[in-house]
């Protein structure tokens, strides 16, 4: 097997919530937003990163983009370490990895026309020789994003488009650079149900036709089954379970994954099931619980969970869970 496209090893990122005062002293308090993350992403693979707010998934996305500098650990893209890149090399790296944002209403500058928005990455990277070539590339990106006929969109402004069309413009703005990795941060959570399917299908198509790898960040386990090859479930800055979509959806080992799966509403009133509704909310990443970080909310925690930080247990060669109770198959 060839080298993975992306390899993340022991990645950590913490922010300072409170600095010690110059006069009164005190301890620095750290928000450990990402607290040791390892995963790899193959070429053309779709990995879903699932977790609730505060689990660190957005910080992870920004760190992968090189927009936040990691506190520790390494990110290797195509075999090259990217955490230590100089600004010029970092700019080049960003050509290959592009982002799709959650809120298509906010991600587009209201004063720019659609052509200006989609052409902007080309200008920044000096990728088109002339105006004509630039326009051709913009038209192709718009078309590939499902905005057809592309010509009629060029002179429009974001406020003249619907939510689904705007999200397609955001995707076109990413595609125009021909990236090898797309980071999609909750790309459908702000859209109506009938339009969500369109965007998910579009991403699935692009991955097929262009061999783009996708990291699909979401809090909705319901949509990932349609699209992802693997699922990584995050809780409080760590991946607690990772495996193939099939294995995670049907044989989840971590109690947090099982709870998440149980509360997804199933659109069939005959299938009303027992739901595992966890009480309380995700704790603050400043005070991470001892032992297993999930134990205070875990419905099946045992005494050992309070002291031992569980290592990954290999359930199958492609499925790992960080739980003391996980069973090897």
């Amino acid at each position, binding site marked *: 097997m060839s080298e993975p496209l992306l390899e993340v090893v022991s990645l950590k990122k913490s922010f300072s919530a409170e600095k010690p005062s110059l006069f009164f002293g005190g301890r620095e308090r750290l928000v450990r937003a990402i607290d040791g993350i390892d995963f790899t992403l193959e070429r053309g693979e779709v990995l879903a990163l699932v977790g*609730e707010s505060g689990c660190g998934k957005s910080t992870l996305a920004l760190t992968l*983009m090189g*927009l936040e500098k990691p506190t520790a650990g390494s990110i290797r893209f195509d075999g090259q370490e990217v955490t230590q890149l100089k600004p010029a090399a*970092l*700019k080049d790296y*960003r050509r290959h990895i*592009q*982002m799709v*944002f959650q809120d298509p209403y*906010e*991600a*587009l*500058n209201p*004063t*720019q026309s659609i052509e200006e928005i989609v052409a*902007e*990455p080309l200008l*920044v*990277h000096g990728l088109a020789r002339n105006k004509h070539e630039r326009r051709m590339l913009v038209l192709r990106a718009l078309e590939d994003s499902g905005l057809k006929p592309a010509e009629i969109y060029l*002179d429009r402004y974001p*406020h*003249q*488009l619907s*939510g*689904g069309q705007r999200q397609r413009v955001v995707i076109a*703005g990413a595609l125009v*650079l021909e990236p090898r990795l797309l980071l999609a941060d909750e790309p459908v959570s702000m859209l*109506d*149900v*009938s*339009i*969500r*399917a369109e965007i*998910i*299908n579009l991403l699935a198509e692009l991955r097929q036709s262009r061999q783009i790898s996708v990291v699909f960040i979401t*809090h*909705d*386990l*319901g949509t990932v*089954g*349609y699209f992802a090859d693997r699922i990584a479930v995050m809780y409080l800055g760590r991946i607690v379970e990772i495996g193939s*979509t099939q294995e995670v*959806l049907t044989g989840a080992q971590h109690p947090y994954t099982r*709870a998440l*799966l149980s*509360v*997804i*509403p*199933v*659109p*069939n*009133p*005959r*299938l*009303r099931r027992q*739901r595992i*509704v*966890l*009480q309380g*909310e995700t704790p603050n990443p400043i005070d991470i619980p001892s032992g297993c970080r999930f134990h205070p909310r875990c419905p099946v925690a045992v005494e050992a969970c309070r002291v031992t930080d569980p290592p990954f247990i290999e359930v199958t060669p492609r499925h790992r869970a960080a739980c003391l109770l996980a069973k090897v198959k």
Partner: protein
Amino acid sequence: MPLSSPLETIPIKRTPFQNFWRIFTQNRMGLVGLVALIAIILVAVFASALAPYDPYSSAGINSSDIYQPPSPEHPFGTDDAGKDELSLFVYGARVSLVVGFFASFISLAIGGSIGISAGFFGGRTETVLMRFNDIMLVIPDLALMVVIIALTKPSLWNIILVIGLLGWTFTSRIVRSQTLAVKSKKYVLRARAIGAGNRHIIYNHILPLVLPLLLVNAVLVISAAILNESALSFLGLGDPTLISWGQMLNYAFARGAMSAGAWWALVVPGFGIVWVVLALTLLGQGLEQVFNPRTESHHLVETKREERPVPAVLPGPASSAPQPLLTVTNLSIEYTLSGGSRALAVDHVSFTLQKGEMLGLVGESGCGKTTLMLGLLRLLPAAGKVVSGEVDFDGHDLIALSEEELRDVRWKGIAIIFQGAMNALNPVRTVGDQLVEAIRQHDPGKPTAALEARVSELLDLVGISAERKGDYPHQYSGGMRQRAMIAMALACDPQIVIADEPTTALDVMIQAQILELLSSLREKLGLSIILVTHDLGVVAEMCDSVLVMYGGVMAEYAPVDRVYNAPQHPYTRELLKAFPDLADPGKKLSSIPGYPPRLDDLPAGCRFAPRCSVALERCSRDLPGITDLGEEHIVRCHLVEPQ
């Protein structure tokens, strides 16, 4: 705003300038200001042609010409040197305007750069720049100008420079806060993600959004500069070789115009200053209207309270169930759009709600869900109006009740949790206080001890520890704030609670907690609940019956099992196919081509026809009637109509 969503996406093809001009001309005052400003600029430009005399030359002036009142030769009179006031006024406009425009250009350039740098770079740069700004702000401008001018030669360019260099402090503060706001936008992050550098981001994303503000602000800075020049000249610090309105005032005062009774010598230059300042202020208001969309008049206008012919009544659902708590029959709600046209945002909707029943109201954004709920309680915005139908609650027709009687039904009979309400808690009052207020609204006589007990009881009911009633909303998490809003809705023991998207924007686990809470409240209190949502999964898990709306029309209304397992309306079927189902992940997600109809452009026939894959020819011609399929299953589609 529930109204904005269907109207936001109106695609109008206009260039930014056409857009600008359209909104700008809507405001008369802005237009008047612009005309007034252009007039005075023309006067200054063509001064030599307009002025009857040359004010810089004293040729042909006699001592008898001093302080002459207005006359045919001198329509504005003459000054202390016998010069024609009209000519002085016309030439004075040149200097005053030149000072105003050049000085303000300097101020805006400095203020804009400092504001953008401070806002964009933040950190130490911001601290240093803003402290410098604060110092400049506390120094009295005029006093400093006087000192500087007194120390240097009072020439025109010195005056411009001094006024310009001292007049930027307010601009920089406004620009900085605007920059901060723009900087946090996602499209700036997107530009960074593309790989763009600071310069690119400032030029392409910050500047275009700061410029409008700078333009509005420029108007104030220009007026200030003109006033400052007048003040300096008046104090005798102007350039003595030039005529400006300030110099005219200065000479008039210094050379006894008052004692000579020559009022015109003061009024004429004063008029010029007032003219320009007023023109600029009006222009500023017009620009404000264009660049600050929040002040733009709303798309919708108030409905005139006139009676309209009530549309023909369609047969309602025939129900065999016991007398329901709420019966809505043929409710239609109309909006008046800008331009005066009207649109039926809700068209003949009928449903019933039994005691203890949970009804799911489903549809995409803009389908009229929220409008329908607001219409039930007559809480519609001014542009909306119930045009027909009945809402029978507990034996009263809510549409016919007086406003006074209706107030009693709201909250006590039917409480509503608005979408995003959890962000509407007052941040400076404790949650307990806000609950007390809600109870007092409808029960003013309740003794304090009983109030306290009730607050604790309500919090307990929604799963919040009573100890936390003294906390402020920001000390609560999102989930707890939503619980507090539910407690608020329960404050007056209502029989029906309407929950509009109660779990949108919450995390999955918190969503599950809130839904569990609503279920348990229904059981404990025998509450009837209308759950407004776009999440078909939630409806399937929670509700007894479902009302599917599309484009203001009820597409399908039936018990939950029928809707999911035997859907009859093509829209319901498409919606179910588009919804991800974890229990059946092999199924391909299908999407519905096209977009929901806009309120101002409703299709003639069935509102779903343009997107419907099985539409017949007549579907795009006639709006289908209501078909009762029996077993409480109502569908509005030509395909299920008996032949």
